[in-house]
């Protein structure tokens, strides 16, 4: 018997927008200064990538906190004290004031109900145990986590079938001692498995190709997530994008051309995933330079091969050059995330942009993208109209409801410039948020699928820890519902158990507990 619990978060009364003439453009208000979001991700070569943000609730009030990488500055945790407007307070002595941090991902490693944090560093990464009340301690040694001294740039996590302890993938970039000749000197990606509260020594994911994003994802709905890895062709030799079989109890094995995997070589920087077309299989948006990919399975179905067609051009999400301003040089894309910022029920796409480092062939004034999804499957740019076309040197970011009003707000981490925060003040449709929860290991139901049904239409999202640019969110899954006034939801749990469809209460977070 699944339990649905209506959480106490208040919902705001929302007026219904008109959806007749294209997507409604939400209005964002920058509240960086007024909210007290004073932080800079800084650094030179070793922080030319990174700048991730991890967003999760560590105070228990339902409003998520913001952890931000600092590069050569200390990383910082911002406590969320928002109400109608956004309000943050930089935490003192949270334990997360760490040097040389490139990014972080939240997850509950030890299943104690308190979210922990995997902190990526240029150096040894750390696993920070949540102690409650937004305090953290380094549990790397206690958990047997043997960190390598690497330029850590990517992370993903899953719970393999039957496992009582998570499987973590850490991606790394270049051998930073190779100043003269860095090309071809990618360092190792590592897979950590464990049991009984300890990680074993990591296994190398050979070959490793200078990874900037990783994601455990059930690409073919087999029930067993695979590890998708996006790699930066700038540095590898003989490399490509990768997909790994990660079967319980077996060594990870790459998908091969014989299995249908087709070589793709891009400046891979970030992965975002969503079932955009409603066929129950996830699509993948891959960020790069001057060319981004939106991959759809070529032949979806139970016997699908991992072959993808790129529909970025067809659907209007190439995001290959600035859409506003005078600088028309090609763009550089980093973090990407799907969301629904206008709650119209069609997935939107948020892409953080920024020049690598004074590269003159690429735009210096490179605005972030807010691409609004439409019923016909295409997207339209709205970043300038929505008020989020920042021209700073973006890296990480997030779409997340920070003040519990049912509207996804926006966080952007810039390199060598102030991080930014926008409150979504737009008119929006109805919404619902679903928080799946399990007992014991994998409390947050990572790699479960959450489905929301309105009439004949089903939206679905996979619970993911990974992807993006060096950062991710762990919050209830947000679904825009347009003008629907009722909805049902179910969860397909990581073990394949299909929950029942049950009505949900709109305008608030619904807790769904596993059997």
């Amino acid at each position: 018997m699944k339990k649905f619990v209506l959480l106490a978060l208040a919902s705001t009364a929302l007026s219904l927008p008109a959806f007749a003439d294209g997507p409604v453009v939400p209005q964002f208000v920058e509240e960086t200064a007024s909210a007290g979001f004073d932080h800079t991700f800084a650094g030179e070569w070793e922080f030319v990538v990174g700048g991730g943000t991890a967003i999760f609730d560590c105070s228990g009030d339902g409003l998520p906190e913001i952890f931000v990488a600092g590069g050569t500055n200390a990383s910082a945790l911002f406590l969320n004290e928002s109400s109608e407007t956004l309000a943050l307070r930089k935490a003192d002595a949270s334990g997360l004031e760490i040097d040389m941090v490139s990014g972080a991902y939240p997850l509950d490693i030890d299943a104690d109900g308190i979210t922990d944090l995997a902190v990526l560093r240029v150096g040894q990464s750390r696993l920070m145990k949540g102690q409650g009340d937004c305090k953290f301690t380094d549990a790397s040694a206690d958990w047997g986590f043997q960190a390598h001294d690497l330029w850590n740039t990517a992370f993903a996590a899953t719970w393999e079938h039957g496992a009582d302890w998570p499987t973590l993938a850490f991606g790394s970039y270049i051998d930073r001692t190779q100043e003269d000749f860095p090309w071809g000197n990618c360092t190792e990606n590592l897979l950590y498995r464990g049991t009984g509260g300890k990680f074993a020594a990591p296994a190398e994911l050979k070959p490793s190709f200078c990874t900037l994003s990783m994601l455990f994802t059930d690409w073919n709905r087999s029930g067993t997530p695979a590890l998708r890895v996006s790699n930066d062709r700038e540095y590898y030799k003989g490399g490509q994008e990768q997909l790994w079989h990660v079967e319980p109890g077996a060594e990870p094995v790459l998908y091969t051309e014989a299995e249908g995997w087709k070589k793709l070589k891009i400046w891979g920087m970030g992965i975002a995933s969503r079932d955009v077309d409603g066929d129950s299989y996830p699509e993948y948006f891959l960020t790069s330079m001057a060319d981004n990919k939106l991959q759809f399975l070529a032949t979806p179905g139970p016997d699908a091969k991992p072959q993808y067609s790129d529909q970025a051009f067809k659907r209007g999400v190439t995001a290959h050059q600035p859409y506003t301003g005078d600088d028309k040089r090609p763009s550089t894309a980093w973090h990407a995330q799907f969301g629904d910022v206008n709650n119209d029920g069609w997935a939107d796409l948020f892409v953080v942009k920024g020049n690598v480092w004074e590269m003159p062939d690429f735009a210096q004034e490179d605005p972030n993208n807010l691409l609004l999804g439409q019923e016909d499957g295409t997207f339209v740019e709205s970043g300038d109209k929505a008020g989020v076309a920042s021209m700073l040197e973006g890296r990480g970011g997030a779409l997340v409801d920070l003040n519990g009003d049912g509207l996804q707000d926006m966080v952007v981490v810039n390199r060598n410039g102030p991080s930014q925060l926008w409150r979504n003040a737009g008119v929006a449709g109805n919404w619902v948020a679903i928080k799946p929860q399990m007992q014991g290991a994998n409390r947050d139901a990572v790699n479960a699928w959450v489905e929301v049904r309105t009439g004949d239409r089903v939206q679905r999202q996979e619970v993911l820890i990974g992807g993006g640019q060096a950062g991710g969110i762990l919050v209830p899954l947000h679904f825009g519902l347009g003008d629907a006034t009722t909805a049902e939801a179910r969860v397909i749990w990581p073990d394949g158990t299909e929950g029942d469809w049950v009505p949900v209460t709109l305008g608030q977070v619904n807790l769904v507990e596993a059997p």
Partner: protein
Amino acid sequence: MEPLHLNRRSLLLASAALLLPLPALAEDRPAAEEVVLKWYRLILELIRHTATYSPPVASRAFAYLGVALWEGVAQSRGLTSLAGQVNSLTSPPAPPGPLDEAALVHAVLSSATAALFFNTGPTGQRAMAAMTRKLGEKVAAGLDPTLVKTSEDHGAALTAHILAWAETDGGAHIESLGFPAEWKLTDGPAHWVPTNAIRLQQTPLLPNWGTVRTFAVTGDLPCGLEPPPEYSEDPASAFFAEAIEVYDTGVSLTDEQKLIARFWSDDPMLSPTPPGHWASILIEIATRDALPVDRLADALARLGMAVADAFIVCWRVKFEVDLVRPVTYIRRLIDPKFEPLLNTPPFPEYPSGHSSQSGAAYAVLEAIFGQDFAFDDATHEADGLPVRTFPSFKAAAEEAAISRLYGGIHFRAAIENGLTQGECVAEFANRLKTL
């Protein structure tokens, strides 16, 4: 207190203990040819990792680097300048006095590389700076600092002269990675249309490259070509037969044909590009045979100019003929699901650029090293492709050319006539007087 006696061993120990870099010693001074080879290995990486460096742009850089290097070596050894022989190059500044050849070569290549790759990314910038600093220390070890300074200053002056010349050739400035913001497609099915879904590549690469000033090639539109078979959709036509050949080959490729196609694919951003492939061959030979710097500089200059001229002449014809690519024709008339092995380059088909520049490259290298000069080609070894052995430069060029048929990106006429065009271009480079 006893005086401190420093020797190599004590320095090693002291440096290791203090984690300090070892000072360069005179006995470790690299010869000028070693300096050249180190710089060219870095240049091959910069070609690969600089976003504007499509094959034509890469060829231009090899030409200017080669000429700058040659002028330095020529002055150092009293050999013949290319000034007055190649288009619009005036005499470079004379040396102010005695020069050290290795220091001069290092200064020329460091300054020319920094200028030509000013737009490379932060990693390339770091690598260039590190090479300039570390190799410069080795080159200067044990030399009179005044001689080092004179050589460095004159090297920079030589480079400035070459770069001023380069600035006027019409190819110095590349916008939007070489893809114009707008381009009107030629009407009719015979003509090029975009072949992929990359937004930037909906216009053709460098449509005006055919107007860039040539180096050794002189005269009005030399090295013209026979036109390709007349466009036709008639299954009995010569054009259709060429398309069928690409299709039949593409759907029945042997493993060896696939390997050949990939070996010569030489994609920009994933390899040193076709001109870099030939530069890599020359560098391997120079390393194997310990080529002296004068012969090495001569070969690099001629090779660079030949491939650059080949691309210019080839591009001129490409945009005059503006021929449709095989993938477009075959999908429309033969098999809508046809997938060529290689990605089709984003510009018109006729003639084949790789064939043209390979024809020029082999003919130049053959004139320098001889007809039956065997060599190994390890250009793509680090990328996992095997070393290939060739009995001659011509055999390599012919394989490079036919690889485009195997790859499904060119018709036979573009391949065969491209090679011929390259041979014609090479004759101009071969006439230059140097050694």
